[in-house]
């Protein structure tokens, strides 16, 4: 139990041959807020062990799409989700689904940093402790490993028991990423993970995402097309709550099928 939790996402750790990756499939997904439809029937299959970038203008529904995958809309009154979402073949909205277990498998990084009002170390270890994926003795190793993974260790190793709110915005975002990775998720939903980071750190995180995608299905929302070009295997282009194009990255950037994609890629939209 312990070794799995600590080792499965480590930089140098081996890919478990038995680990079943969870591809994510969305079928005819409609999300409504009261009478207002935010997503108008989105369908896409995000390949397992690949990085899928979700791009589109502000307010087009990227975050809304991500949130339907780990059922974050459940707790927003007035939000309704229809259609189907499957993770690793399992219906996310099916009867008898344990949301707690789903969210352990499907990790999410929010658009804005939201660390716990707890110590830096506790930010990383609280969820694994709550899920029992780490023992008390393994905590400090777990904390160090994941802080190193996101490149935050050297900056915080002397103040692990201090508040995270004294960290910079970008550092807080990295801490949140470490917190998400500490649960060894099978699917990662990243909502603009590098919007608050400098180029060097961005490069590190992009490398990390590529590395993780060897055993994790990654969905990453980004406004940075160059970044999407660098890290994505597939690109989903959303506009006003509908899919415009979903294609391999190379196709999307070099020879998009839709005129609007062409305009977006060349910077004329969004």
């Amino acid at each position, binding site marked *: 139990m312990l070794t799995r939790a600590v080792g499965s996402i480590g930089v140098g750790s081996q890919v478990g041959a038995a680990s079943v990756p969870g591809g994510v499939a969305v079928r005819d997904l409609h999300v409504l807020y009261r009478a207002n439809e935010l997503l108008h029937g989105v369908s896409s299959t995000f390949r397992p062990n690949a990085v899928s970038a979700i791009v589109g203008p502000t307010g087009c529904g990227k975050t809304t799409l991500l949130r339907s995958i*780990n059922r*974050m809309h459940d*707790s927003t*009154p007035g939000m309704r989700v229809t259609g189907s979402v499957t993770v690793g073949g399992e219906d996310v909205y099916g009867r008898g689904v344990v*949301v*707690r*277990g*789903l*969210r*352990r498998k499907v*990790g*999410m990084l*929010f658009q*804005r*940093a*939201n*660390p*716990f*009002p*707890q110590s830096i170390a506790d930010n990383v270890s*609280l*969820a694994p402790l*709550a*899920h029992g994926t780490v023992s008390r003795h393994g905590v*400090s190793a777990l904390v160090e490993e994941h802080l190193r993974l996101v490149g935050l260790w050297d900056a915080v190793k002397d103040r*692990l*028991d*201090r*508040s995270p*709110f*004294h960290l910079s*915005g*970008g550092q*807080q*975002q990295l801490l*949140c990423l470490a*917190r*998400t990775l500490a*649960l060894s998720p099978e699917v990662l939903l990243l909502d603009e993970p590098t*919007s*608050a980071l400098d180029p060097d750190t961005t490069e590190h995180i992009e490398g990390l995402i590529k590395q993780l995608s060897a055993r994790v299905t990654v969905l990453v929302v980004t406004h940075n097309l160059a970044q999407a070009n660098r890290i994505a295997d597939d690109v989903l282009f959303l506009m006003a709550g509908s899919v415009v194009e979903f294609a391999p990255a190379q196709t999307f950037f070099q020879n998009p099928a839709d005129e609007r994609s062409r305009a977006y890629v060349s910077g004329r939209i969004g």
Partner: protein
Amino acid sequence: MILLRRRAEGRTPGPAPAPRAARHERDTTIGEAVTRAVTAVFGSVPTALLIFILAVMVVTAVPAILFTGTGFFGTYFSPGNYYLAPTVHNGISASHGAVFGFLPEMLGTLVTSAIALGLAVPISVGGVLTLTEWVPRWAQGGVGLLLELLAGVPSVVFGLWGVLTFGPFMLRTVSPALTGIIGGFPWLFPWLPQGAAWVLLGAALIAFIGIRASVHGRLRRRARWLSVIVLFITLWGAVAPWFTGEVNTAGGVLTASLVLALMVVPIIAATTRELVRHVPVLAKEGSLALGMTKHETARVVTLPYISTGVLATALLGWGRAIGETIAMFFIIGNIFTGIPVNIYHSGATLSSLIAGTLDGVLQAKTDVSALFAAGLFLLVISLLSNLGGRLIIRRVAGDRALPVGRGV
């Protein structure tokens, strides 16, 4: 700001521009100056009022202070006998045999309010957290209204209920059971005389604070637990004897404390509810998205977010509990028989002493002066506790600062 700086950088160095700023470029306009003056006047009103009240009370209390000196900390109060020759001390004349010892009343005030708050804070916070999780959103408004109505119930009603209904119930049922249970374990600390317990308590407190301040890392967590246990044991050693012994009245200190707690709960709960509602959704979602339960989220996110606010509210409740007069007057009255032998015994608080005695002593100037001195003690206690609470809040907020103005 950034724009301004850019413009400043972009300007080529040359002759200084003429100091002829247009009206809208000046830092203060006439409107602003007027606003500032008005704010200053209104802002200083509370301070001036407090100083005025303090001054009046001190001046009025001077005769009694001269007459009694440190005798205020005695355990006996008596307005004296008007029909016999007056007693003169330090040039102040008072009724025959007048004694102004307020120690039982001071302790009564502190103990009743401490017990009340000790119960009210966990009950309110726990209740509110449970409520916001289990009661559907549409019903929560109703609960909030109910709390506000409860907060508005006049204290005389609480007093009547306390003395006529709740007191007898305590006398018949609760107090005998409590004294039976707690008194049934004399073997727990037979070797611990009360004095020793207090000394130990002090030592433990010092150790507790010292350890918190000096030890870091994993050791610190362990040491903290140890000191909490020591603290608990000594506290228990010091406190338990007060919960044993004879139960002889409906209106004892415990009854009064419980009624006080009931009066304070709506105040603390109503504010706590507001605090909980203002915890950022994003912060809670961070926990939920990791598969943590609502309960874990409440513990990990909500509680730290509201803790300083709850402390501040508790201070308000504390102020109310200390100053509460009429209900306390009804329930424990003002029995001047020294320090109560236990928590079930009747006693007095500073405010119940004032309320109960004033009418009978209006003719005796020095007695009135002594009551003002009692009021002064009350004021000082509430000011000190308020300041203490503020210090605690600042300490708490200093380390685990709330994310105000931080973030991306």
